[in-house]
């Protein structure tokens, strides 16, 4: 089942980030003077120590992946979130080739698969989808739900305005508000002792707002990273389209889509995060992923 697979991938991403963080911190503790005490203090580090301490290739294993979802290194190869490189460029105006090369894999995959990072990998996304489920529960028990909505053009102003402010006024706010970067702090706090950094509070605030007052407003209309991915994934090869006949105009796909798109018309492109909720909800099995680029487009949505 598609949604089961997607949920598994989302959870695996968070688990992966937690494991990488733990291994990196373990390796750091191993070379510290009081590292043994730090390892003993933490159950996770003690467990890793019991498995890896005796191995000769210990540092190869612990540092094979280094970093987090904002900035990662795999063996010797750097992979960065495109927003990290963009925010770096607009403020510093530098072109560090090695750092720019870390863009290649995420940008290539996004141009191939569309805004799939948001739907399948972003650790914030799964929290906000829980907000959706919570609101459905509120509906069922008869409590009021809200859906504050703002014009779709807002996200272009937030991303575009941020870029212009960065270039001309040296002000950069993407790094301040982008949830995946802040998420490493959350994982660190949960696993290794809570220092309630601003990042944790910000994520709690967004989540609480989305649970109570809006439906996926952050992903749909605010997140600068999501907007950047939607530009990059605008003419992606993979899209979601009606591939079989038999649509009975029930519009379930439109109701379930968090971006208020119309999958039955096949006009999805940049903004669609390939979550596949429309595919899963359709009883007539009309919709599916299609790897062919622009299908029949009546309206473009970036």
């Amino acid at each position, binding site marked *: 089942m598609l949604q089961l697979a997607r949920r598994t991938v989302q959870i695996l991403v968070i688990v992966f980030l937690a494991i990488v963080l733990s291994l990196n911190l373990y390796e750091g503790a191993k070379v510290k003077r009081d590292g043994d005490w730090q390892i003993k203090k933490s159950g996770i580090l003690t467990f890793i120590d019991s498995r890896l301490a005796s191995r000769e290739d210990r540092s190869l294993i612990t540092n094979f992946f280094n970093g987090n979802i904002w900035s990662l290194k795999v063996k010797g190869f750097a992979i960065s979130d495109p927003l990290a490189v963009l925010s770096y460029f607009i*403020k510093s105006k530098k072109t560090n080739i090695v750092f720019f090369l870390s863009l290649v894999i995420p940008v290539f995959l996004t141009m191939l698969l569309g805004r799939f990072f948001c739907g399948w990998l972003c650790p914030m996304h799964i929290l906000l989808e829980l907000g959706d489920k919570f609101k459905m529960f509120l509906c069922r028990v008869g409590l009021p739900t809200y859906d504050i909505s703002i014009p779709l053009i807002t996200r272009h102003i937030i991303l575009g305005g941020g870029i212009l*402010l960065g270039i001309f006024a040296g002000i950069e706010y993407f790094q301040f508000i982008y949830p995946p970067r802040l998420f490493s702090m959350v994982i660190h706090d949960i696993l290794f002792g809570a220092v309630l950094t601003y990042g944790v509070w910000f994520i709690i605030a967004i989540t609480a707002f989305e649970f109570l007052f809006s439906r996926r407003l952050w992903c749909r209309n605010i997140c600068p990273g999501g907007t950047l991915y939607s530009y990059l994934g605008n003419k992606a090869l993979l899209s979601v389209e009606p591939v079989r006949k038999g649509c009975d105009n029930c519009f379930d796909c439109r109701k379930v889509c968090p971006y208020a798109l119309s999958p039955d018309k096949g006009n999805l492109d940049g903004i669609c995060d390939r979550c596949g909720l429309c595919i899963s909800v359709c009883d007539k099995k009309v919709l599916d992923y299609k790897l062919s680029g622009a299908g029949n487009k009546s309206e473009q949505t970036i």
Partner: protein
Amino acid sequence: MERRDFIKAGLLCLPFAGLSGWLVNDRLEKLSDITDSRGRVYLRPPGALPEKEFISTCIKCGRCGEVCPNDTLNFFDEISSPALVGTPYFIPREKACMLCMKCTQICPSGALVKVESDDGDVISKVVKIGTAEVDKNICNSYNGIACGVCVRACPYSGIALSAGTWEKPVVNVTACVGCGLCEQICIHAPQAIRVKPAQIQRA
């Protein structure tokens, strides 16, 4: 309809404009202006670019602090200085820098200039965290009690920090890299030798 939407969106972006304006008011020029409630001065990690450049280059990934084997580096978390939040610093009196250069090797954006070598000469050419300064009013050696602990702690002992008569510490301002080991170990409370943040980056 489009114009109304545009105005509505513009108004909704006011919080973001406010946030940006707040960031503008940030004091970015000299990190030495920014002290915490106890008057301690913050230092950047070794190999850091000059402050304005550093803040625009640092992507706040946090990996330098993770890799530091000395638990030296911390990260700003004070919302009062939003442009600084997430950038690394250290306070030498609490934990000085061992000059292992691991943070510079891991920095993905080049905010910390990479130093692969562990040769002291190479390091002293790139690193200029600050300059140590002796407070002769309180330093033991300048007040009749021979000490000299800071000179022994200095990784460039005899070059950056040398002992005169009575073990009086004398700082060579061009040779000192600003690691803060002298400040950390000073046996006087408050410390008689402090690192002043660098004003000019050594090439």
